[in-house]
């Protein structure tokens, strides 16, 4: 069981570092697109 927790801890830290970097980058694009679509909806209403 000790090795199970070691592997899980390593996987958690590595996965979290990767996801934080990736989501930080891609999330900005999502925000820009979302605000653009909402702005367009407001103008067309």
């Amino acid at each position: 069981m000790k090795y199970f927790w070691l592997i899980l801890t390593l996987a958690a830290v590595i996965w979290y570092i990767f996801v934080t970097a990736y989501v930080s980058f891609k999330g900005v694009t999502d925000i820009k697109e979302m605000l653009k679509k909402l702005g367009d909806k407001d103008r067309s209403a």
Partner: protein
Amino acid sequence: MTNFNWLLDGSIVGLYLLITMAAGLYVRKYVSKVDDFLVAGREMNVYLGIASLAATEFGIVTCMYTAEAGYKYGFAGATPGIAMALSMLVIGYTGFCIKPLRDSGVITIPQLIEKQFGPRVRWAAGVVIVLGGLLNMGVFLRIGGQFLVTIIGLKVTSFNLWGFQVGYLEAMMTVLLIGVATYTILGGMLSVLITDFLQFVVMSVGLIAVTLLVLVYVGWDKIVTTVEVNYGAGGFNPFVHPDLGWPYVVFQIMLNFAAVLTWQTTIARVLAAKDSMTGQKIYVRTSFFFVCRFLIPGIWGIAALATLGQVTNTLDAMPTFLSTFVPVGLMGLCVAAMLAADMSTDSSYMLTWGSVIYNDIMAPFRKKEWSEKKGILINRMIVALIGVFLLFYGLWYPLEGDVWTYLGITGTIYLASISVLLISSCYWKGANSWGAFGSIIFAAAIPVAFLVLEKTPGTKDLAKQIGPYYSGIAAYVCSALAMVIFSLLKPKKGETT
């Protein structure tokens, strides 16, 4: 004595707060309809959804009780995280319930439930959700305040304001709540999503930095040895832990499966997604975060045990350890990360419970369609009132007893019945209002009865023998059985009673 430096660390925290508030207030101009306010116009994409879901479901309260679980049970205390991650992966991959839920275009779960069970069940479900949710959330502010006061190391507990003695804890959390409520009231889900994103980044950087520091300076060997010495094999395996065992594991599986399906703040991300496929992707890709959510603070808790030894107040062990372990500079990032975690949770919770009050509990009073302007105004007022409730209930009213038991009981009151109602409304045409009411009553009665038994001196020992896990399992099983039995008992149309 702590390592918190008011000039350096305080500036980092202040800068973070300023940027978050500005971003939250900036997007309010995009809110013109109730849909924009409650579900961000359903324009949320995958990565923003991941950031928002992760930030919402990790608050200071989460960090405190998961660290406490690590301190008290070792690695076995992280079991709920594995149960939650697996539940989210399976539900996200298969679309079980969440696909029909998102495809139906509803704003809340009770709205979908009404289609099969009628308006009375919708109203009752709304009341159960709000009661369970708000009582659950009621303790967030106080626990968040406890963490901040401990880690900052305020020796003086109160100050004089115009002749009144005001506690630092109360003042700190009041100011924080007013800030969070301001951008949530003005920008609704849009402000919540934007600030959640910023909070996810700050929170994650802080969590990762502190975890690496713990792993390097406390060391993996010392962490493992501490668990071995204090808890033996039970510290690694929940099935052989004397205080946990199989009832704990089964209860965690049921609780977390139900939470992933129906917890309003979690499901709100699926409902705000631009389509059901996006909602499913958010679930699949966020699932492993829930292992981190329990394991990372759990390791901090074990490190606290390794460094401090046995302490009386196990909830305060982790912040006490961090207050002297984290160096100046990184301490500011750590406090900002925890503030970020707390703010994102508070804002989302206020908005989503508010959405159920507006959409379901107030539904009978909206016979005539309200204008968008009036709808937004009412929603803003509801969020403000929830803020007032939180302030008085959570901050000025002292909580007695164990936090996790409190959260588990209030959560089960809602989760057991609403998960049964949701599954039935999606996949069982034979389910009806008798079954729904039976399910709601049994799911609420069992945990409440257990709490009463536990608090009554004459039945305290009986409650101890039953234990919270058997009582929790009984709530889920009886709720499901009540749905089946009462649905079958209800006479069909045309039959005489």
